[in-house]
């Protein structure tokens, strides 16, 4: 079995060969070195993990310190002031905040139902051989950089809307009291609605791929049982799949929302960068990220720069709350499902 000089560990153990004193010492040395290596590696990895916390802390501290001059100058009014005038150095964040919330809200209003329905199609209706290709295509599309959506929106989608959808909306709702103010003004093509629609198209693959993943996590037994008692496909989806996967679906929607809120490039191209709060959805507006992207490199004066950083701080705050709430809700729901 054994050849001299090439003993396996097992052989040594079985034979119980006597260990020389020298061997013991050198063995202890080696063990000590290994232990040291291990301790070093342990601390290095822990340092790297703590580095992530340091990054987050750094982001917060740098944003707060950068935003301080503007916050001191304008105080709480910064949040509710609409005026944004670099010449007189009067800055208010209301218009960007409003634009951010409205565009994201409309985007989610469109993307969530459509995304969920696509996920239902992919998991329940789609022929087997088509599921994988479509699923892969969606995941690939979710990774396409937002600037691509932006450039398409600018050159193709905005002119298209200007000629078709917007005149139609103005003509249709122009005489209805409340709705007319939503679609007031000339059709520019660019504006809040265009930005919201592009955001919707952009987060669609995102929401679809997450919902499809969680829909697929439903144990087949549950669905088969429901089908077995005579449920229709829709009833299975609504009464079995949806309740079972609520956790993941909410998480996916929140992540999509976080992405829509902070999205910069897709919006910057088509929003129009107009600092005003307008009830009209087809009017040009601005979002926090678009304002920063458009104006930061051209900002002269410390107060202007600081006001833009303050906008960044607000954006970070909003997305942080949305994402943290998503995580927290997931944890709560997971716990409930677990019980």
């Amino acid at each position, binding site marked *: 079995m054994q050849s001299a000089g090439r003993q396996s560990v097992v052989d040594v153990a079985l034979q119980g060969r006597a260990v020389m004193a020298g061997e013991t010492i050198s063995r202890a040395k080696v063990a000590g070195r290994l232990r040291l290596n291990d301790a070093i590696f342990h601390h290095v990895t822990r340092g790297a993990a703590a580095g*992530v916390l340091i990054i987050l802390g750094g982001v917060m501290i740098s944003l707060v310190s950068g935003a301080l001059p503007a916050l001191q100058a304008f105080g709480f009014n910064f949040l509710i002031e609409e005026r944004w005038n670099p010449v007189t150095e009067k800055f208010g964040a209301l218009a960007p905040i409003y634009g951010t919330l409205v565009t994201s809200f409309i985007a989610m209003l469109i993307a969530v139902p459509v995304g969920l329905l696509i996920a239902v199609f*992919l998991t329940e209706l789609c022929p087997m051989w088509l599921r994988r290709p479509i699923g892969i295509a969606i995941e690939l599309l979710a*990774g396409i950089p937002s600037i*691509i959506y932006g450039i398409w929106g600018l050159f193709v989608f905005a002119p298209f809307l200007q000629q078709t959808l917007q005149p139609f909306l103005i003509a249709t709702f122009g005489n209805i009291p409340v709705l007319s103010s939503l679609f007031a003004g000339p059709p520019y093509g660019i504006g809040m609605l265009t930005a919201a629609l592009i955001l919707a198209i952009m987060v669609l693959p995102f929401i679809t791929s997450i919902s499809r993943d969680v829909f697929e996590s439903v144990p087949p037994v549950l669905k088969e049982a429901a089908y077995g008692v005579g449920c229709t496909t829709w009833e299975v989806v609504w009464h079995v799949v949806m309740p079972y996967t609520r956790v993941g679906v909410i998480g996916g929607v929140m992540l999509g929302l976080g992405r829509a809120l*902070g999205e*910069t490039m897709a919006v910057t*191209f088509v929003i129009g960068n107009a600092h005003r709060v307008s009830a009209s959805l087809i009017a040009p507006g601005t979002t926090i990220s678009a304002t920063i992207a458009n104006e930061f490199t051209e900002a002269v004066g410390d107060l202007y720069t600081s006001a833009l950083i303050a906008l960044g701080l607000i954006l970070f705050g909003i997305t942080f709350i949305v994402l943290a709430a998503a995580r927290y809700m997931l944890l709560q729901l997971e716990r409930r499902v677990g019980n």
Partner: protein
Amino acid sequence: MSLYDNRRRRNKIAMTLSLLATVFGAGWLVLILSVLLWEGFSGLSLAVFTEMTPPPGADGGLLNPLVGSLILTILAVIIGTPIGILAGTYMAEYGRHTKLTTIVRFINDILLSAPSIVIGLFIYEIMVAPMGHFSGLAGAVALAVIVIPVVLRTTEDMLLLVPDQLREAATALGLPRVNVIRHVCYRAAKAGMVTGVLLAIARISGETAPLLFTSLNNQFWSTNLNAPMSSLPVVIFQFALSPYKDWQKLAWTGALIITLTVLALSIIARILAASRKTP
């Protein structure tokens, strides 16, 4: 009987809606990609890869932004990957149940979807403002901050997939943790970890917002990391918003190059991830 009809009708409506939603969603994406392919390929030529960005009205290419993007991406990966992998290692191996891991996982998930423009502001504050000028290095660091959460997440997930029996077997031989991790866990999770790095590259190769005020842009050939550096996404942004037809054409071509790169990276990552499961 009418109840049954009702249910059937409702089902029919819902299923038709979901089919329509799929056609609707897929329609937009096909539309966007076909315009991109059409506009991009019609501007694609050898000059794009061999000539510098032109002044308005002249012919030119995208050589300096291509090289700039390449440098920024490589640098960002070199900076970000080790940190991400080490942190992921801690979370999956040493500190699987510690408080630090729970917190870092939570924070990392937030950083993963944090608005990239805020990261640009952060790097501006800590690097550009103190140094007094925009620089390629700042751009690379900004991208590295985006790389870290992606790599960390995949590393942790992939290491957690490694069966504990492997670790136990290696430990039973007397190997210390560091060797178990390096020679057993890393080896078992290698394909997945490479996938994470590829996904991170795909993610940053289209990032524009964090570069706008870190590496800025450069009209000329420059590989100086201490000076503003051109990058493909920023050039696309600038050229697309310009009134010049030549520049807009180049912007489309650049957009096509980025999209194809991202798609290629994602596909390779998928193939790698799939190959992990088969053996």
